[in-house]
């Protein structure tokens, strides 16, 4: 077995271990959290006999270990169970809501990357000049502003004052692409603020670093045009760390979707997590945390593997 295969297998095994630890953790947290899910489901006025009947049906009277084993067995069979509050199949709920969240978060990351790179290049190119200073302030502000505040302000400006954009709702891009763009602009913009600022700062710093390297000086000495040096050589090398930033920002964007979906009334994963936590719909929370963790772990796994593939020194170092 070559070093790359060993590296990949090791990474996958570690990922499985992390997933198991998360499963144990989230299951334990849900049991420790105060509040009775059946009371939340039926209301505080519910008849105690009915409460007891539902507790039996949901296996809540069984020992914790038995409940955990039942849950894991069901999960392995692909059965996430039914929501206590909404009485819907959790697998179906995730299948409906995950695409909604992805259809906002992925374009948000793409937008952040494109504008972040453009702004980063501009800042590096015009280092110390007015445009650099102005853009640096904008980037720093974008990084510091809370997501909910940006959301409300943009909503007020573009929805209420100018009346250009709808402030609530979502449209499926495959059913109504124009509606999807119209309703999605604001949430996507809000979600892209933080990754945009990080990408812009990363590109600016990396570009300036690369432009100071000896090989760039050599290329200048060979008479290669400034433009070619900047875009062909400097930018290419400066973009490698951006991939790292983006992979790490996946979790930020997923986290941000909790707030953005709440503000813009979008029925995605973020909103489902929010309502499930508030109503202690523990089966839904367990499933959602696991699915979200899987998504983030998968992104990190791909990032690790790509590093090992791009740079042999990493997998060799791990092998030792």
């Amino acid at each position: 077995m070559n070093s790359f295969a060993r590296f990949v297998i090791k990474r996958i095994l570690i990922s499985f271990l992390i997933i198991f630890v998360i499963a144990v953790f989230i299951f334990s947290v849900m049991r420790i959290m105060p509040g009775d899910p059946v009371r939340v489901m039926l209301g505080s006025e519910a008849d105690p006999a009915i409460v007891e009947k539902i507790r039996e049906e949901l296996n809540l009277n069984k020992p914790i270990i038995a409940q955990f084993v039942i849950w894991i067995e069901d999960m392995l069979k692909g059965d996430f169970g039914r929501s206590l509050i909404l009485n819907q199949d959790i697998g179906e709920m995730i299948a409906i809501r995950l695409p909604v969240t992805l259809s906002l978060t992925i374009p948000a990351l793409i937008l952040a990357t494109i504008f972040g790179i453009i702004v980063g290049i501009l800042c590096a190119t015009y280092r110390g000049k007015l445009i650099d200073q102005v853009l640096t302030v904008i980037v720093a502000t974008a990084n510091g502003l809370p997501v909910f505040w940006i959301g409300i302000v943009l909503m007020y400006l573009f929805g209420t004052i100018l009346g250009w954009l709808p402030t609530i709702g979502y449209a499926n891009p495959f059913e109504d692409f124009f509606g999807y763009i119209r309703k999605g602009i604001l949430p996507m913009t809000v979600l892209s603020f933080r990754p945009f600022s990080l990408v812009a700062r990363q590109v600016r710093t990396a570009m300036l670093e690369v432009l100071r390297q000896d090989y760039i000086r050599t290329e200048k000495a060979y008479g290669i045009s400034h433009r070619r040096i900047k875009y062909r050589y400097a930018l290419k090398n400066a973009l490698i760390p951006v991939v790292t930033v983006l992979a790490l920002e996946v979790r930020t964007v997923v986290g941000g979707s909790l707030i953005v979906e709440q503000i813009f009334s979008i029925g995605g994963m973020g909103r489902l997590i929010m309502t499930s936590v508030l109503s202690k719909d523990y089966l839904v929370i367990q499933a959602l945390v696991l699915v979200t963790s899987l998504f983030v772990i998968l992104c990190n796994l791909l990032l690790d593997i790509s590093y090992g593939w791009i740079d042999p020194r990493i997998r060799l170092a791990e092998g030792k």
Partner: protein
Amino acid sequence: MKKGGIFALLILICLSLPAFGASGSKKASKDGSFVVGVLTECSNVAAWRLRSSQERVAFAPIYETLFKMSDKGDIEGYLAEKITSNRDKLTYTVTLRKDVNFSDGSKLDADVLLWNFKNFKENSQYSSTEFGMVESFEKADDYTVVIRLKQWTSQVPFALARNAGLMYSKKAFDDNGYNWCLQHPVGTGPYVLDKWVNDEYKTYVRNAKYWNKAAKPFFNELKVVVIGDEAAAQNALMSGEIDGYHGFSSASQAAMLKRGGYVQYANKLGYGVYIVVFASDVKSSPLSDVRVRKAICYAIDNATMSKKLGFGMTIANNQYGIPGTKFYDESIKGYPYDPAKAKALLAEAGYSKGFTTTIYTGNDMDMTNWLVGIQGYLKAVGITLRIEILDVAEWVSTYMYDIPEGMIFGPRHSFSSNIVNQALSNFSFNAIGGVGMLNKCMLHPADVNDALQKAVSSDNDSDMLSNFKNACKLIFDEYCLAYPLANSSSSVVICKDNIVDKGCFNAGCEFPDYNLISRK
């Protein structure tokens, strides 16, 4: 050139926004549809499971009740023609109209009514509150059902104007099963559910088989949108994407009304009370001394709190009954703000140096503001108040059951026509059974229990009111079991001023009648 390109791109993006929005925000509420926002998504769909006021707003287009409450609190026939009672035989007899059908075409007859009653008693979380006294149901003829009681209660007609009177299609249940019904509303109402995107919106279209030919619903379509953030809801209302919003806090209601162009439509009988309940079940607690409880009440200036924290949306009060309604009792004295008297009572009870206690409430910013106010007032008389804010799940499962030493702050603890039942659940011996507040509390005096039991078993309105008022006098003035600070309407919709409400939200009935709302 490069800079020019970038600026041109930015300008293009900005210019394209209005183009995207051209068919957007302001077109959401066309003349043929009414769009109302609600704070949270519905957890319950089936008629017998409905619980929150949001659920009533969302499913009132589909479900209708056997009886309705008039604005004065009188019971009026709707799906049922009449209800008659026989106290000696412990029965109520419900007679249905003969022309009612569900949206699936099935008839509402005695068999369907019987099934609805039995199903409610067996599966509703309100079973013990609404049908706790019911022994059995039996069909008398094709359109008549007799309700047999274990013990007399005057509250059955009121129950049938609320959840217990909502009718669900038995045919839909038989064809599809219990679990299907928990997700699919099938009723007799003027609209049917067209599309439901969970956590986003529900759309409704007119029920082509609607039985009530006299009703003239104005809107062809309804839409209920879930907007979980108040600021977002204000924006949506101002941008015209919604026509009304249910779920604003008092502050937001006041802000919207002050802005102009909006009106408040509220339930005329349904009120929530901001109430401090002395829930302690610990004998050594200072709260077990009535003088201490009264001192706490005298120490709090509820009139000022209502004015400042209620933003004009609350009424300072000293009882459950609302001024102007038949439940209000002018002879209840309450506890006008008097810190000197509070200190004197504390000294008399042996607490001149004060003491420390705890108050529990749910996670609600509005409630937190009130509690901070109470904390300040109590500090002034030497009482240190710890505030325990519980998250929603913990609060719902705790506040009526497991509070140790201390007090509960009821979050707009709501009531309407069930005001007598509410008091019975909380303060009578019934509470010890476990379905009301204070089931672990020591404070259930026998004379309060007697008065409430008499009120609920009265066979006429005047006896019921007289016993209820007597019980309230004991609860609030004599034993000081709780301290009501203020009341606010339990169901308020802020609408644009072009919406005309002739009895939808602005009515005595808990379930909005969407036949009675229109646009100017």
